[in-house]
């Protein structure tokens, strides 16, 4: 435990240094830069790119969570069960459409910038959250549900006080998956002028400067790993508090 704690702290420190003090890493990346070329990306501050990157991911994943969990609640009620196949189809198609293609197709409608990236990340992130939310909401312990009905809770109260809290750890697994994919995929948004860390990587691709590619790639990778880790910790804590079985490795 203490060892993984130490690794975690080291990763956080490394990421903070990369974001706040990129110049410290000039000697590390220098061997990968073209002779005489710039080593550290300077056209924009890494901090502002990181914030904008994470903001885009948070917004897209937040919207995807709202819609996916909302749909899952709808289709697990008797009144909305007819929408289950349709919801499945839509969330599946969302993940089958390649994000880069969605991005490009959204440009004529939404213009360059953050809009197309939001759409692409949103669509791509729906499926894991929807599927885990359905799994979470449809595998609640029958005894608990019976008890909730028995003490006279209305449907709405059962949903808010019993079903959603119990399903939360499972839903979080889907959110985690979706967010981590979004962190990596958001880099592609910079091909249509969204402000993300992908800007650094693309600058590297266009000028054959591997130092930029590595700088951007390492920061995005660290963000993905740490967010994954943080959400896993949250999930474990919630699961333990609720006394539910761990979600298992099959998700």
């Amino acid at each position, binding site marked *: 435990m203490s060892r993984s704690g130490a690794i975690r702290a080291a990763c956080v420190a490394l990421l903070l240094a990369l974001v706040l003090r990129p110049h410290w890493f000039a000697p590390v990346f220098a061997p*990968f830069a073209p002779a005489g070329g710039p080593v550290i990306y300077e056209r924009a501050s890494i901090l502002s790119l990181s914030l904008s990157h994470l903001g885009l991911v948070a917004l897209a994943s937040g919207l995807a969570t709202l819609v996916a969990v909302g749909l899952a609640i709808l289709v697990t009620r008797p009144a*909305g069960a*007819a*929408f289950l*196949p*349709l919801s*499945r*189809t*839509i969330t*599946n*198609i969302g*993940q*089958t*459409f*390649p*994000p*880069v*293609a969605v991005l*490009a*197709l959204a*440009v*004529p*409608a939404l213009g360059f910038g953050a809009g197309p990236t939001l759409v692409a990340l949103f669509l791509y992130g729906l499926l894991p959250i929807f599927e885990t939310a359905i799994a979470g909401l449809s595998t609640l312990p029958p005894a608990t549900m019976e008890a909730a009905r028995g003490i006279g809770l209305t449907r709405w109260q059962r949903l808010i006080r019993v079903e959603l809290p119990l399903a939360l750890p499972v839903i979080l697994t889907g959110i985690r998956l979706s967010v*981590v994919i979004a*962190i*990596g*995929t958001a*880099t*592609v948004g*910079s*091909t*249509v002028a969204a402000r993300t860390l*992908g800007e650094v*990587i*693309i600058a*590297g*691709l266009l000028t*054959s400067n*591997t130092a930029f*590619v*590595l700088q*951007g*790639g390492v920061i*995005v*990778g660290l963000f*993905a*790993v740490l967010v994954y880790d943080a959400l896993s910790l949250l999930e474990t804590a919630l699961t333990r508090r609720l006394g539910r079985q761990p979600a298992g490795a*099959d998700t």
Partner: protein
Amino acid sequence: MAGLSPPGVLFAVLGLAAIFAPFMTLAANRIVAGEGRALWTLAAPQITGPGIALMLLGLALGLPAARPFLRIAGAALGLAGLVWLLVLGAASLLAEAGDYARVSPAAGFWCLLVVFALMMADALSALSPGPAARAGLLVLVLALIGALLWSGALSDLSIAQEFASRKDAFYSASLRHLGLAFGSLLAAAVIGLPLGVMSHRNAGLRRALLPVLSFLQTIPSLAMFGIMIPVLSWLSGVIPGARAIGIAGIGFAPAFLALTLYSLLPVVANVLAGLRTAPAATLEAARGMGMTWRQRLTRVELPLGLPVVLAGLRIVLVQNIGLAVIAGLIGGGGYGTFVFQGLNQTAGDLILLGALPTVALALISAIAMDILVEVTTPRTEREE
């Protein structure tokens, strides 16, 4: 409300709303922004009337809940009306416009297309067709689309004109895209299957391998493509003869390698998960029959785990078809070439020429692989 299909009501409302959205765009030339034209302004009423009537009839047929076949027929009628309006509307719009004018489908068309396609999918899922029926349907739909494209009925559309002026480039981009997506799938399968089988038997290897593969996945796709360029140009300098077989820092090789590395985790992880699906009792029985581990692997574990392995390959294939677009950014060819050219020139039709085939390819592959997964699933599991 009884007897009405709730999704059918939703489709009818959305479909009616979409009929009022601009159906096509007419632009003076390839680059300028066009003006949207509503359905009934495309052509004379005797042309638009039947099309609109077909679509309204289609939306109405989608309403009864108990009749999935009626809903399928409704979706088919709606799609027919849509194509009718697209083909005849384009011809009539062009006839009244200048020489360089371009017509393309607009928001209304795309929304109606989505509504009728979802209506079809929804009605089909109520029938839950078996794999053979789904495969037949997929072939039928592809044949219809192919016939429509082949007939030249759509050649008035702007995207068809982009295609006509780039026929050769399009075919070579298609070959390259398919080569990247399927080639890297094949490479990942050839490397990943034995790796998965070995790490199933060897816990030490598994503990060492999985973190490495997970690490590869955390590298953002853009950076992965970028990192492969110097790695390969270094390799091509160091290994004699490497350049002769096409290993170079730019073009096909770095994109191919990036996609392959990206695919290893889903393949290995699903092989591991698949091999674990064999019930302990079954394995015990196999052992009791005196099977060697190789026999257990090929006769019990692999056949039982095949659907899970194929599901991994499906993930990889769909993912690689999409990621191969990024190859266009590093000179690796494929449909990405058109996408990024189009983005640079803000030429929407060129973007479509790259993006639509990519989306179609991903959808077809996903459906085909799903059918394959189902065919290989043992019957008892399918009925659960």
